[in-house]
Structures are given as C-alpha cells and as structure tokens.
C-alpha cells in the first residue's frame, strides 16, 4: 500500500517535471529576457517616446495634452539650430574621415611583425582606455596659445608673442575638438581594422602578388574590399558617437556657433518653457540623424561595440 503510494507520487513528480520542462521551453526564453527588456523598453524606448512626445507638446503622463508642431516650426527658423547642425556635422564628418584613413594606415603597419609590436599595441589600447574628457584636457594643455606647443614655438623663435601662435581651441574650425576625436578614434578603429585584417589572412594578397599586382593595386583591389564592411560599421559608430556627444564641444568649442548637442543642452536648462520644447525638438533631430545612420549599420551583420565610451 505504502509502496503503491510512493509509486503514484513518483509518477506525479515525473509529470510535474515534464510540465515544467515544457513550460521552460515555452516561457523560459522570454522569462530570461524579461528583466533586460523591461529596462531597455522603460528607459531607452521610453526616453525616445518622451522626447518626441514633449517636442509635440503631447505627453499625458505629465499632463501635456496640446498636440502641435509649434516647436518644430520655431526650431526650423532658428539660426542657432542650423549653425549647430552644420558645426556638428563638420566635426563628426571631418574627425571620422581623418580617423578612418589614419586607422587603416596604422592597422596595416601594426599587422607586420617587427620588434616592439607588443608595446605599440599596448599603447594603442592605452589611448583607448583614456576617457574623452581627459584627452580634451591633454589637448588643452598642449595646444592653447599658452600651451606647451606654443611655448616650444616661442623657445625656438618661431613666434615672438603669445598671440602669434594659431588658435587651435575655441576656434572657428573646431580643430581642437577634431584633434581630441582623432586621438581617441584612431586606436578604436585601428583595433577593429587590425582584427579584420588578421581574420582574413594573407592568401588573397599573396595570390595578387603572384599575378603581378603592385603594392597599390593590392591595397585598392584586395585589402580595401575585404576590410570595407567592418570599417564602414566602425565609421558609422564613430560618426554617430561624435555627432551626438556633448562634452568635448562644450569644453573646447566656441559658444557661438556651438555644436548641436551643446545648443540642445543650453535650451534644456533655459527657464523659458518654449526653449524646453525646442530642446526636445532639437534632440529629436539628433535622434533622427543617428537613426538614419544606424539604419545602414543594422544591415551590416558583424557588430562591434565600443569598449571605451
């Protein structure tokens, strides 16, 4: 009798296990993803919805019910906005293009084996782990008109006066800002391109050499097509990052015209409520640009993450 009972219990437990396993398969994956998705949906997707909602003056959660395009109309007539967009585009495009070119050159050089290569790779990673803000300080101390470069120029007799050294920060062309980004992004892109180069190996190049290709032809027709997809995705990540970043243009840039995120931040802190909805609209524009750019990025299957921002 007792034995029969325990058998029945055993069968029951087995059934329970089976049901549990079925449930795990059905519900397990969504359950495992739930906490992460909850955070992403609440904070990330939520913030996107809130920016757009506030830019339209409509957000029931906080008692905003006017649905209008006033902020969009006023931002499109705002000169600071257009200048900001231009400045940001210039900074992002110029620094990304320069970084890409230099990163390809660096990766091709680092691929070769030579004495001290380990040390160089380590230096690359070192630059990668220094925050942008600190690089901005380094560039400031180096390139202002009272910076180390200006002092060296003075000591060498190239300039006779503090004001003769060219203005490299707070300047019209955002040279200081671009310098910070180039210093930071060359190692970032260089390591990605180096990884791709090491991944594809050298067989294709050797074949090309056997067929009589010159150095330039090998680069143009063999290496470049191989590294293009990964390089493009790195380009897009860097462009998107630089376009939307606020700290460096704020520290090293002019206040008028200022980069777009700087303008957006200034409007956000403005006590005037109209400026606030303009700030939202301006940030919708930044989000829109990033979305368009990453649209390309999404089509590229190999994904890389920034390990340093």
């Amino acid at each position, binding site marked *: 009798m007792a034995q029969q009972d325990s058998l029945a219990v055993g069968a029951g437990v087995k059934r329970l296990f089976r049901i549990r396993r079925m449930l795990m398969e059905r519900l*397990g*994956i969504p359950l*495992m*993803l739930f906490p*992460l998705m909850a*955070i*992403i949906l609440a*904070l*990330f997707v*939520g*913030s*996107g919805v*809130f*920016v757009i909602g506030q830019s339209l003056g409509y*957000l029931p*959660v906080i008692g905003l019910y006017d649905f209008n395009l006033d902020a969009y109309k006023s931002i499109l007539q705002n000169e600071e906005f257009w200048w900001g967009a231009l400045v940001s585009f210039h900074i992002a495009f110029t620094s990304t293009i320069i970084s890409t070119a230099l990163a390809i050159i*660096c990766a091709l050089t680092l691929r*070769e084996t*030579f004495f*001290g290569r380990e040390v*160089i*790779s380590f*230096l*690359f*990673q*070192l*630059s990668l*782990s*220094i*925050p942008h*803000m600190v*690089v*901005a*300080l*380094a560039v400031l*101390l*180096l390139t202002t008109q*009272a910076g180390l470069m*200006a*002092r060296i120029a003075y*000591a060498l007799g190239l300039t006779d006066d503090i004001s003769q050294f060219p203005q490299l920060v707070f300047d019209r062309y955002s040279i200081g800002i671009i310098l910070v980004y180039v210093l930071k992004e060359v190692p970032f892109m260089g*390591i*990605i391109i180096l*990884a791709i180069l090491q991944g594809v190996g050298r067989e294709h190049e050797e074949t090309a050499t056997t067929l009589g290709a010159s*150095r330039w032809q090998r680069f143009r027709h063999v290496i470049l097509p191989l590294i293009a997809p990964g390089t493009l995705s790195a380009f897009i990540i860097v462009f*998107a990052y630089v376009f*939307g970043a*606020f*700290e460096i243009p704020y*520290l090293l840039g002019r206040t008028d015209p200022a980069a777009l*995120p700087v303008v*957006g*931040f200034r409007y956000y802190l403005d006590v005037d409520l109209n400026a606030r909805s303009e*700030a939202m609209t301006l*940030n919708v524009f930044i*989000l829109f640009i990033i979305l368009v750019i*990453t649209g390309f990025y999404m089509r590229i299957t190999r*994904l890389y993450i920034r*390990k340093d*921002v």
Partner: protein
Amino acid sequence: MFGLSIRFWRNAVIVGIVASAVLPMIPMIVWCFSSGWYFPNLIPEEWSIRGWVYITEPYSRAFPALLNSLLIAGAVTLIAFPIGIPAARALGLYKFRGKRIVEYLILAPLIVPELPMAIGIHILFIKYGLANTLFGVMIIHLILVVPYVVLVLAGVFANYGPETEQSARTLGASPLRVFFYVTLPAIFPGMVVGGLFAFIRSWRTYVFTLIIGGGVVETLPLVVFSFIGEGDNHVSAVLSVLFIAPAILMLLFTARYLTGEKGRGGFMGI
C-alpha cells in the same frame, strides 16, 4: 612612395603612434605636480602637491564625488549581473524568433547619445522622485552598463555546454545549487571581464549623471569637467589621473588575464 622605402614609412607610422600616445600626456603629468607654470617657461616655476592633498580632504568637492563614483559604479555593476546573466544565457545558448531585434535593442543604447535619452526620461524621474538622487542615477546608468555585461557573457554562453547542468540536476542538485556550483564557476572569467567593462562604463558616465543627478549627485567626471572648465590646470590634471586609474588598472589586469588563448583585444569583436 615619394622615393622613400616602405620601411621608412612603416617606421614613421610607428613613431607617430608612439608620439600621439605619449606626447599629449606629458604636459598633463607635469601639471600634476605644479601649480604655477606660466608662458613662456618650458619648466614650471612652482612645484606643488596641493591637488593631491585636495582630493583626500573630506570636505573638498573631489572626495565625496570619488565616493559617489565608487558607490554608483559598484552598485550598478552588481545589479547588472542578475539582469544580464539570464538574458546573456538566452542569447548565447538559444535560437529564437525575434533574436535579432533583441540584439539590436541591446546595442542601441550604446550608439544613441546620452543627451536625448537623458532629457527625454528626466521628466519621469522628476515625477517619481528619482531625479537628484543616488538611486535615480544608478537606475539610469543601468541602461548603458547592462548591454556590456550581456554582450560579454552572451559570448561566453555561446561556447558553454549546458549538459553538465543537466547531469548535476539528475544527481539531485537543486537548481540554485546547480547555478552556484556548475554555471557560476564556468562563466566566472566572463563575469570578471564584463563586470570590469560595466564598472568603467558607469565610472566615466557624464551626461546621465549631470541631468538625472541634477548637480546634487556629484561624481568624479562631473568634478573633473568643472575643474577643466574653470581652467584650474593643476587640480584638473590630478583629478584626471584619478579618473583614468581604473581603466588603466583594468587594461593591465585584462592584458594578463586574457593572454593565453585570446590575447589582448579579444573582446572587441563580440
């Protein structure tokens, strides 16, 4: 090219890399120990350790900011694990519908700039009393930190065989025991690396802390930023060194920790 050998150009590139890594740091290191260094002197006239004393004073701005930074980055990293590990397991071990969308959603916060995210959600944080609090800052940091944990650990889980867990279960171990004695030891190295990334990501976060913390919650980057803005080169340099320290330590640590199979930078291509 230009009549010079490839060897020349190669050496030129190497010199360039070394120079661009080392040169920008020189004035900063000198400024760490100098409070007066006026144009056009090449060597400072006043040496000082005022900044180093300043950061250890409990009533300075730097000291509490340093504590806040440690507290926030530490807590956020710890919270990121229970959220990130299950998701990483799902992404690393299973194929399911909508996996790509989930992956994109995880990567998206790493690409979208902080400013639009912060000012969008700020109003909600104000409404629920989370703005200007340490807890609110921790919550907003999670969105940047958890993806790093998930991406690193998804890579670990992709090479992980769950069969051992099954065996342990068959032998009568409870799920909790299986997790602590089988799963955890297997993924621990990945947790260390993911945790370091997570810590450093939170450590260097500026815009989120600025907006959600509202200037009430001050962390190290906020103080560094304001000293750079004020033009106090000596204190800025000292604080910058402090600010870089965890990343440099991590670099040295992971370089040692990861050499072996994957080598340095093995985690770039996740």
